Structure formats: structure tokens, C-alpha cells
């Protein structure tokens, strides 16, 4: 789709500044005499060099904005005057061309790809030429043993090109065993410096190539060389200073040969060689006749260029990367600027939360005070739940709810549990009553839903969950925030953030002093919320327990260690009104949670999680940002998740519980989920009390879970 005379529009990877990468539209000008316009299909990453450029390591400083890359292949689209050996339609490989979808390059940097050589193989040409130059400077003879320090891409190519010339056997020396699997496919011997230098000193190879680029690579190579041997310094050192072991070089009568592809131009000028194209042609020949194989160096699928930023961040941390390439076939060249290349429409459509509801399940409500009002409304809204009986120590509260729900008040718990029209009970009680009444209900054969938290302490929660399990009924802890529309959308898109790295939660409220006695509604007066023995805790347990569950639900991670600080600023009651909790998750991610019930004038909640590939804000506004192109989201843009439906989360929770009961399967939120949250709460309280890190898993074990 060339537009003759106007040039082409494509896309290319640009680094606007150190450590940043993005995909941008770019122009390929029309060919001048001697130029060729190439539609690039594949560009290969040079891991060591591009990592060094990206990080701005010593000896690898580049000017920004910068276009990385220098190895690519594609198809010739258009040729300028005077180009005779390449025709439009030819498969070609390019020397020194950045990662981009189209390029106009001088014909001397273009080689026709021989038959049988694939696009990715051909795209290796520049890297192969570098390695080939090292092999030539090393003068490795057929049948001559040699060693290569470094198991990266250039080191591997060097080894294989030397072997293609008949040299060998080959010893590979690396810093560690990390890349042994790659090197082991064709190395005769693999040594790790980490295992000690004695084995390296004993290598005694007549030729050693240092392809590491490490500051200590040359010292290793010199150690591995036999007296009178030759050491080729092929990798570009990314250190301001390195040791040149001059005494050893002299004593061992070594020849240390610096080998940088830049010198090929000088060689060409002096008539010493055919320059880089001469090396490249040798590599192409080896690829064409099968003496050089590189397919196994690309263990992963081609990269989507839209994920450039994600990839370069991975390149920084993942030292095992050997061969990777960008696939540009999804970015056809065009005569028109395409600013939406590859972008897909995001979808925030979610289905009917009540679809598939089974049942019905008839509830008896035990506890008809504060939160029970919300639950009663939810049970009414849910299509597969109903309330048949209500009980409260304050008969007025039970009668009130029962009349609203068309249910009957029960004078006692026993009376409620004896009813045959009660399939399940909902416990909305002071926390110290959860466990005994849940056990009683379960033993009466009723399924059990316990308002969060599971209990006032971990031991009680464990006893409760185990007793209910033994009774063979279904149990769930009421964590309805999982079913908020934003949370459902967040869970749909959570993979966009990649491996989780961190969590930040803030929960700030201004609870009036009367709350401690009357709750928010004033339906029931009691001081149980102020008593640690009865409530189990303050704002941490009352409010952050929701967030603890929500994070578990979103990330699927358990907390490994907890630190916490609590305080009671208001000074009334026995429970905290301020808390900050720091956690470390099993995967190493960290999280911090801050909550207060007494921040004057504040009502603010935020919940944010992030990972290696992006971040997701759930509260106050659901937003997702990703570097991944496989998530049906635009890459590198903050996207607000706009739900197209609103539903009552608590009703969804009860409906799904009822469906689980009807279908005889575990509910979404199990007793074990409740124990995990309770253990985290207990660990936080223990940490706050002792000033020492606490581990939820240890507490669960101690509690007999």
C-alpha cells in the first residue's frame, strides 16, 4: 500500500527519555536513489545492548528521543533509482534499522534473504554479523577448543558460528546457572563463575571470547585462557571502569583482542575486510545452508509492539531473556496516518448478576438491629431468597423487620431454628455471638450466613467454621463488596496489572460519638461496639475487614507478614479508632492500609492495586492502566471503567449464596475465606500490641485451623 512519492506512515518504538518506551507513528520518506523502502515484519531485540541503552548504563548513553533496535527483516516495497539487486516483493533483512514497521534505508544496509531462511532468522543478521566479527578476530581454527564467557544472545551466536566453522569443543562460562538451559543445548561444557574460579582457571582454552559486557568478564576470560592463547573482547562493557589484568596477560603471553563492530568500517577503508556486510553475508550463508540454527533462541511468542513499554520494563529485571522479537505484521504500512493502530474497543459489559439464580432459600434473621435492615432489603431484592422468621433480643426490632418482610417474629433462637420454613439463618449480631449461634444453627441443620467479621477473635472463628463444616451445612461470611459493580469490573480486568506489586487502601470516616452506642441508625442501643471482648476491635475489624477480603478476592494473594499501629484518639471505649497496617504478600508485594473512624469532616475511601504491567483504582473511581495489549484495553492509557448497570451488591451476595445452597456447592465466600480475613485481623492486632511482625498463617495454625 505504498503511496508513491509521498512516503509511508508506519509505527515505531520510541524512547522519549531514559527508562520510557512507547509506540508512535513515524514516517518513512520516499526512496532516494539507492534507497529501498521496506515493510518490516520482524525486528529482533538485542537484550544486552538495549537494556543498557534503556537504563543509561555507562558506555551506553544515547540521545533522546531515541529509536532503539538495529536488526530487522521484511519485504521490499519500493526501490529507488540505481537499486538493481533488490526488487519490490523481495524478502530482505536490514542492518542497523530500529524497531519500526516501515523503513527507508540505503541499499547497502539491505540484503536479500536466501530461500529457506525465515523472517526472524533473517532479522538476526546484525547480531549475527557482530558475533561473526568476533569469531573472525578470534581466529578459531577447525577442531580447536574454545570457550565463550557469557550465555546471552551474542555469546550463543558466537559459539554457534564458530562451531559452524568446525571449531570445538566449546566451554560456556556464565556468571550463574541461570542460562544453562539455553546454553546447554549445544555447549559441550557449562561452567558458572558462581561455583568458584578454580574450574574457570582450569579451562585452559586456546581461544576465549568474552561476550558478557560485564566489568569482570575479561578477567574471567583471561583466567580461562591457556598460556599463549587469544582472548577476544566482544561484549561492550557497561561499566565506567574495569580491570585489565595486565600482569596475567603478560605472564600467560595472551593476546587480548578488542572487537567492536564499529571497527569494521575502518577495516573496510583499509581494505582489510568487506566490512559489516562481509560478515553478514557469511552469517546468511550459514543460515541458508543450515550450519547456523537460531530458532530455539526464541522461546517466546513474538512481542506485540504496543507492549513495548511493558517489554522493556521486563527486560530490565529479567536477565534470562535471550532472544525476543517484535512482530510488526499487525501494523501494515499505509499512506495515511493511523493513530488507532491495533487498538481494540474496551468492553465493560457485564451480565445479569441474578441470571442462573436457583432456590429459593428461606432465611431466618437472628439479630434485627443496625446492619440487618440492609440485609433484609437485600434478601427481599434477591429473586431466590426470602425471609420467613426474625428474632432479636429486643422483640420490637424483630417485629419491625418481620412486618416489613412479611415474615413472622420468633421469640427465641430455638423457636426460629425449629421452624421447617427456615433453610438458612443470617446472623447480624454483636461479634462475640457469631460463633455460638452459628454453631447452634448449624447443629439444627440450618445453613449459615454470618455478617462480617466472622467472630470477635480467631479462636472463636476457627471453632465456628469447623463446627459448621462438621454439621455439613453451607456457611458464608457476608462480604458483599465483592459484588459491587466496580469490583466485578475490576476483577474482570485485574490481569491488566500483571503480577501484583502493591496495594494501597485508605478508609477515612467521621463516625459521630453516638455511633458507639447506637450505630448509625439508632435502632438499637448498646455499648458492645466499644468493648474489645465483644466486638473484637474497632475500625480495623469493623471496616478494613471488607477491604482485606476485597484485596484477597481481586488479587488471589494471602498476606505473609503484618505490621500494624493502632490508637484510640477519642479515648472512649476499648477499641481503636485509628489504624495503619503494613503487609507483605506471599509473592513479595506489599500493601498499606490506613483507616480512621474519627477524621472530622472526611468521608473518603480509596483502593488501589498495581503490578508490573499496570495499576487499577477501584475506589473512589474505577480506573485501569495497562502496558499489556492482550487485555482488551488501550495500552498505556488510563481508562475509566464505566459500568453499564447498577445493582444491589448485598442482594447479589445473598442470591449467589442461595444458588450455591440449591446446587449443593460451596458459596463464593466460604468459611475459609472468613478465617483468612480473621487471621489477618488477628495478626494486625497482635503486631500492634507487640510491636513485632505477625504472620497470619502462624496464628491460624495456633488456633487449630
Amino acid at each position: 500500500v505504498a503511496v508513491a512519492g509521498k512516503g509511508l506512515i508506519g509505527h515505531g518504538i520510541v524512547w522519549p527519555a531514559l527508562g520510557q518506551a512507547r509506540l508512535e507513528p513515524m514516517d518513512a520518506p520516499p526512496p532516494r536513489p539507492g534507497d529501498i523502502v521496506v515493510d518490516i515484519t520482524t525486528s529482533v531485540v538485542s537484550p544486552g545492548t538495549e537494556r543498557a541503552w534503556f537504563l543509561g548504563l555507562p558506555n551506553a548513553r544515547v540521545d533522546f528521543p531515541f529509536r532503539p533496535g538495529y536488526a530487522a527483516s521484511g519485504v521490499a516495497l519500493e526501490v529507488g533509482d540505481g537499486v538493481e539487486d533488490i526488487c519490490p516483493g523481495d524478502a530482505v533483512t536490514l542492518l542497523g534499522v530500529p524497531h519500526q514497521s516501515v523503513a527507508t534505508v540505503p541499499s547497502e544496509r539491505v540484503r536479500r534473504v536466501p530461500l529457506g531462511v525465515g523472517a526472524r532468522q533473517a532479522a538476526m543478521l546484525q547480531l549475527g554479523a557482530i558475533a561473526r566479527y568476533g569469531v573472525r578476530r578470534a581466529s578459531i581454527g577447525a577442531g580447536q577448543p574454545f570457550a565463550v564467557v557469557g550465555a546471552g544472545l551474542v555469546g550463543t551466536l558466537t559459539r554457534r558460528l564458530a562451531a559452524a566453522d568446525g571449531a570445538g569443543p566449546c566451554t560456556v562460562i556464565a556468571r550463574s546457572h541461570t542460562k544453562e538451559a539455553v546454553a546447554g543445548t549445544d555447549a559441550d561444557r557449562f561452567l558458572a563463575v558462581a561455583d568458584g574460579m578454580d574450574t574457570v582457571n582450569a579451562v585452559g582454552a586456546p581461544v576465549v571470547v568474552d561476550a558478557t559486557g560485564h566489568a569482570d568478564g575479561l578477567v574471567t576470560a583471561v583466567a580461562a585462557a591457556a598460556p599463549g592463547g587469544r582472548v577476544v573482547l566482544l561484549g561492550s562493557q557497561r561499566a565506567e571502569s574495569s580491570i585489565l589484568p595486565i600482569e596475567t596477560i603478560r605472564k600467560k603471553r595472551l593476546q587480548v583482542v578488542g572487537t567492536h563492530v564499529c571497527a569494521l568500517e575502518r577495516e573496510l577503508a583499509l581494505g582489510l575486510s568487506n566490512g559489516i556486510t562481509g560478515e553478514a553475508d557469511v552469517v546468511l550463508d550459514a543460515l541458508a545452508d543450515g550450519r547456523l540454527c537460531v530458532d530455539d533462541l526464541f522461546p517466546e511468542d513474538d512481542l506485540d509492539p504496543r507492549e513495548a513499554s511493558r517489554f522493556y520494563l521486563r527486560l530490565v529485571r529479567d536477565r534470562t531473556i535471550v532472544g525476543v522479537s517484535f512482530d510488526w505484521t499487525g501494523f501494515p504500512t499505509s499512506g495515511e496516518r493511523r493513530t488507532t493502530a491495533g487498538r481494540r474497543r474496551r468492553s465493560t459489559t457485564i451480565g445479569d448478576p441474578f441470571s442462573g439464580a436457583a432456590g429459593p432459600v428461606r432465611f431466618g434473621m437472628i439479630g434485627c438491629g443496625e446492619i440487618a435492615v440492609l440485609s433484609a432489603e437485600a434478601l427481599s431484592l434477591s429473586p431466590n431468597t426470602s425471609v420467613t422468621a426474625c428474632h432479636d433480643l429486643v422483640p420490637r426490632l424483630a417485629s419491625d423487620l418481620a412486618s416489613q418482610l412479611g415474615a413472622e417474629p420468633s421469640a427465641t433462637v430455638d423457636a426460629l431454628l425449629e421452624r421447617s420454613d427456615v433453610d438458612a439463618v443470617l446472623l447480624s449480631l454483636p461479634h462475640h455471638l457469631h460463633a455460638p449461634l452459628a454453631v447452634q444453627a448449624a447443629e439444627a441443620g440450618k445453613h449459615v450466613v454470618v455478617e462480617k467479621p466472622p467472630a470477635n477473635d480467631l479462636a472463636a472463628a476457627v471453632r465456628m467454621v469447623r463446627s459448621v463444616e462438621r454439621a455439613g451445612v453451607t456457611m458464608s461470611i457476608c462480604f458483599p463488596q465483592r459484588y459491587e459493580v466496580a469490583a466485578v469490573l475490576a476483577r474482570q480486568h485485574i490481569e491488566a496489572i500483571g503480577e501484583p506489586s502493591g496495594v494501597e487502601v485508605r478508609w477515612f470516616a467521621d463516625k459521630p460519638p453516638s455511633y458507639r452506642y447506637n450505630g448509625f441508625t439508632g435502632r438499637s442501643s448498646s455499648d458492645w461496639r466499644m468493648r474489645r471482648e465483644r466486638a473484637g476491635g474497632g475500625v480495623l475489624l469493623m471496616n478494613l475487614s471488607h477491604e482485606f477480603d476485597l484485596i484477597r478476592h481481586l488479587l488471589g494473594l494471602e498476606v505473609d507478614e503484618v505490621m500494624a499501629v493502632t490508637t484510640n484518639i477519642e479515648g472512649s471505649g476499648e477499641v481503636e479508632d485509628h489504624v495503619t497496617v503494613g503487609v507483605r504478600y506471599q509473592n513479595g508485594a506489599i500493601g498499606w492500609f490506613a483507616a480512621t473512624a474519627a477524621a472530622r469532616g472526611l468521608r473518603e475511601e480509596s483502593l488501589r492495586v498495581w503490578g508490573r504491567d499496570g495499576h487499577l483504582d477501584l475506589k473512589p473511581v474505577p480506573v485501569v492502566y495497562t502496558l499489556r495489549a492482550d487485555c482488551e484495553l488501550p495500552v498505556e492509557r488510563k481508562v475509566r471503567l464505566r459500568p453499564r448497570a447498577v445493582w444491589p451488591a448485598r442482594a447479589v451476595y445473598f442470591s449467589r449464596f442461595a444458588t450455591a445452597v440449591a446446587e449443593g456447592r460451596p458459596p463464593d465466600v466460604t468459611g475459609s475465606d472468613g478465617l483468612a480475613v480473621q487471621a489477618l485481623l488477628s495478626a494486625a492486632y497482635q503486631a500492634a500490641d507487640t510491636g513485632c511482625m505477625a504472620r497470619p498463617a502462624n496464628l491460624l495454625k495456633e488456633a487449630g485451623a
Partner: protein
Amino acid sequence: VTADTAVTLHRDHAGVFLEARLPPGHVAFVDGDAVDQSPAGPVEAIVVTNDADAVRRAAHAFATAARHVVELLSVQPDRPVEVAGNGLLAHLIRAPLGGRATIGLGEGPPVAVVDTSGSPARIADALRRLDELGTLILAGQARGRDLTLNLYTDLHRRSLTITGVPAPVLNGPPPDGWRLPVHVALAEPRRVVARTNVLPGAVWYLLEPEGTIGRQQPTT
């Protein structure tokens, strides 16, 4: 015999002292460049029987080492090479090169530099001055000193070559009639005797048996 430990160089406030621990009836020869720039420590020496042919045999060992260096230089492009030292080895390397050899800065970057000092500072300087694709020949004793430098800019990017050549060794009697080149032969080894002052800057030194042979800095 090449003795790495027969002669030890000491430095103190009074100047340089060479301590020789030689078998009875032997003398040692030390290159001048090994003394003038070196830190304290063992000095490479040619240790020979103290007879009438001792000087000639030691000189032949140096000449053999020099010939090896010249052979290495012969494969370099026919452009000036730099041999900057003042010791016997440097003289012997320069002699067959004639006008091709420069002692210091010549016109344009040299294609090769021969270092007979072993001094890291001089070697680093030489590497920076070498032409692209140039060669540095290490012919001096580093004496435990390694060189810290930017390998990329100072060696790798310009595709330089560094070649280590061994210390002069006795390799049998010189052929009949073998003589040092005339102008080199004028530089007789400076005979140093224990506890006597010697002037610095000799081309090479002859150390006599036993005891400490001192060379002090001249007083004003």
C-alpha cells in the same frame, strides 16, 4: 635462569635499593625500565654465572626477547610505532625498527606501542593514544599492578589488541660472534655494588653477589 625473586627492589626516603639473593658465583642483570618506574617488590632479572661471558649471555637473552617483539610488530601496518622506554629491552626493540620507531609522541596516533615499563599509568596512556585497530605490546613487568580503565572506550570500541610477551630468559649460549648492536653495546650495564651510591637512569644493571646493593637519589 629467570629469577622472579632473586632481586627485590626497595624504596625508602633515601631512594631505591636493589637487594640480590643470588647463588654463589652468580650475578644478576636487571633492565633499567624495571627499576626506574617500578614499585617495591621482586624484579625480573637474568641470573647467570659470573664469568667473562656473563654480560654477553644476559644481553643475548634481552635481544631474544626484543626480537620476538619486533616480529610481532612486523605484521603491523608499516607506520610509526612507539617504543618509549629507556631500558635495554626498549633499545633492542628500537634498533632494528630504525626510523619507524618513535620514543614519544609522533605524528598521528601510533599503530603500535611497546611498553617496557609495566606502569599502569603509561599503559593506560598508550591505549588512549593508539590508533583504531592498533596494538599494545606488554613487555614490562607489572609487578602485581592491574590496570583499571574504561575497557569500552579504551580498548573495545577501537578494537585494539593487547599482546603480552614474556620476560627475557636465558636460552642457551649466544651463537659465536654474536654481539649487541653497536650503539646499544655502548650502554654497558651499570655495575652496582653494595652500599655505594649509584646514578639513576642506567640502561641496565649488573648486580654482584650477595648483600644489598643500593642506589641512592643524588643529593644536591
